[in-house]
């Protein structure tokens, strides 16, 4: 292909190919090649960056402001770092109403304050009408390591845990972006995952925030990393009832819907129930659940398998292209 397609930015395999075949060879260094959510740097620092181009900029449960702070905070948390400082770069489309911009900035302020992160540097650009879609935001986050992800320690018996019902952000965006004439009351799950930080010292081996591509993509990526297959029980995955209804109407697989405030954890079997109970005490993770385990009885290395209610197994692949509603 000689032109960049929208598909390349969708977070699926095409993007992974781009990163591996195009970006990495040019910028090869030991920090980048880890391909963590954040780069783990010397002197105990972690650095991450993300750009936010969400449309619509205001949606049920959040806006581009809450997103650009929480998204970056969460990348640091799941990499073992306490988020401390953020940079904030704005690219604003000429003609954006001032009160809309203000609303977004207030949202950023509140969200950052809630997680005790400071915006310490930034940049503002304005581009002519039509060259950006209202506003694009980039945030980079700097944090201090409090724990260390140890994917190489993962072994059969280790449990897989999610911190709450999945897919709500993706569905909220999809419904507000389109005119499907459906009302589901679903709100984005956009929220900070700071409550996970203490778990780095309490037995968490690995974490990943479930974003674009959904739970299935994260499971598939984890399976690629560890040396054993994963087995997840479909009936144990938490979904909200309204979401279940909406995705069935649209024909979308909820395992591929994005979240913005949920994580997948790998923990040792021995401590799993304790961690689960602790999570359940927190209002942000009341519906946390153990959904499966790392094992070596079924499947092959690199496979993330889902056991359906029938008892049959299904392979989980990463998201390959944008989720679309279907009629078939």
């Amino acid at each position: 292909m000689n032109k960049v397609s929208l598909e390349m930015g969708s977070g699926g395999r095409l993007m992974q190919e781009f990163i591996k075949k195009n970006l990495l060879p040019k910028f090869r260094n030991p920090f980048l090649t880890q391909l963590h959510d954040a780069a783990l740097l010397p002197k105990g620092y972690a650095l991450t960056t993300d750009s936010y181009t969400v449309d619509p900029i205001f949606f049920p449960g959040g806006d581009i402001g809450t997103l650009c702070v929480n998204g970056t905070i969460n990348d640091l948390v799941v990499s073992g770092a306490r988020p401390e400082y953020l940079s904030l770069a704005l690219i604003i489309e000429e003609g954006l109403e001032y009160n809309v911009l203000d609303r977004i900035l207030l949202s950023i302020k509140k969200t950052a304050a809630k997680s005790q992160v400071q915006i310490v540097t930034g940049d503002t650009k304005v581009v002519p009408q039509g060259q950006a879609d209202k506003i694009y935001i980039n945030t980079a986050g700097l944090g201090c390591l409090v724990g260390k992800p140890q994917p190489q320690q993962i072994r059969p018996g280790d449990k897989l845990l999610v911190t709450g019902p999945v897919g709500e952000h993706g569905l909220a965006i999809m419904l507000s972006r389109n005119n499907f004439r459906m009302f589901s009351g679903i709100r984005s799950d956009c929220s900070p995952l700071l409550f996970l930080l203490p778990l780095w010292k309490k037995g968490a081996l690995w974490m990943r925030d479930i974003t674009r591509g959904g739970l299935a993509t994260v499971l598939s990526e984890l399976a690629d990393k560890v040396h054993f297959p994963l087995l997840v029980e479909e009936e144990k995955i938490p979904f909200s009832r309204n979401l279940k209804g909406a995705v069935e109407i649209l024909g979308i697989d909820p395992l591929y819907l994005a979240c913005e405030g949920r994580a997948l954890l790998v923990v040792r079997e021995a401590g799993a129930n304790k961690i689960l109970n602790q999570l359940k005490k927190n209002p942000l993770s009341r519906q946390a659940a153990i959904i499966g385990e790392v094992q070596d009885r079924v499947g092959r290395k690199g496979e993330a398998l889902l056991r359906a209610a029938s008892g049959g197994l299904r392979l989980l692949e990463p998201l390959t292209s944008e989720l679309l509603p279907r009629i078939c």
Partner: protein
Amino acid sequence: MPPKTKSREPFSAWRSSFTLKALLKAVAKETGALRRTIRIMEVCGTHTMTLHRSGLKPLLKEIGVSLISGPGCPVCITPDSYHEAIIDLITKEKNFLAATFGDMTRVPTRKGALQTIVPTFGSAIKIIYSPEETLALARKNPDKQVIFFGAGFETTIPSIAVVLQKAYSENLKNFSVLAALWLIPPAIRTILQSGEVAIDGFLYPGHVSAIIGEEAYRFVAEEYRIPGAIAGFEPADILLGILSVARQIRENNPTVSNEYQRVVRPEGNPQAMRLMAEMLEPFDAYWRGLGLIPKSGLRIKPEWAEYDAIKRFNLKLKAEKTLRTGCRCGEVLKGLIGPTDCPLFGTSCDPEHPRGPCMVSYEGACLIEYKYSSGAKKK
């Protein structure tokens, strides 16, 4: 004993592992008595999807039921020329709004896919969930030409007919439909007539049947002596359908059994069929992969030509004789081969680089095999 949990979900019994295991046992009993593997063609892409997602397909294989995917995939059988016609309009003409269902936009053609082409200024593609949305698009954008690229089988065709009728009664001046409407019973007849596949039974599509009723499939049982069951889409519904087919085989009593009586009436939906007859007429349509099938398509009747995009914009829809090099989608659609039998599967043809529609459509047999089966190969 099954757990006595009260569920607020209408389908919990149809999905519970308890029910499914009991049904699988019942099927195993029938196939055990037959002492051979039976080959059942499921015609509907939604059945294909449920069979894979529910993990049932390999379990059924283990108990002697081999499932073959049939041609019930509108994305798979709509020829490239329809997409190319829309692509031409969108990239060459200003102010065209093309509206279509999700996975239609991903079909790769020589001119690209609807999803990746860049429309000319003022034109755009809109993905819709319901045909109703296309009318709203036309009303809200009086300065644009709205074309609804509507593809589907009998489940969807009545809705498209309603939309045509509404456009007429509202006297919409900027609305038309590129109709790609396909009928299931003629396709089944063509597959049986070719004699190329050994099929022991059919699983008929529950929602197509809700429109056309039971008698539409009678010829399969009477002329070809092949059993069939109309089945719904919950995992338990599919198993009930398979159970019925297995029993019909064992009793040597081919018929059309309705295992979806909560939705399918013997006479179908008369109002829907009346409306279809009013707005549409059958013609000999060309199916991608299957070729020309007599009276297998529906087109907009001449009196509604104003709303027929083909006539309105003088679209040239060429019948293609062959698929693109190496693509064996046609044979997959007929059930002659499985996806993994195609040499391109997993090598040069995969979801990011699809060579044909069977790898693009959500219910295309090849995409489903790739996504859900452990057998799928990675580099």
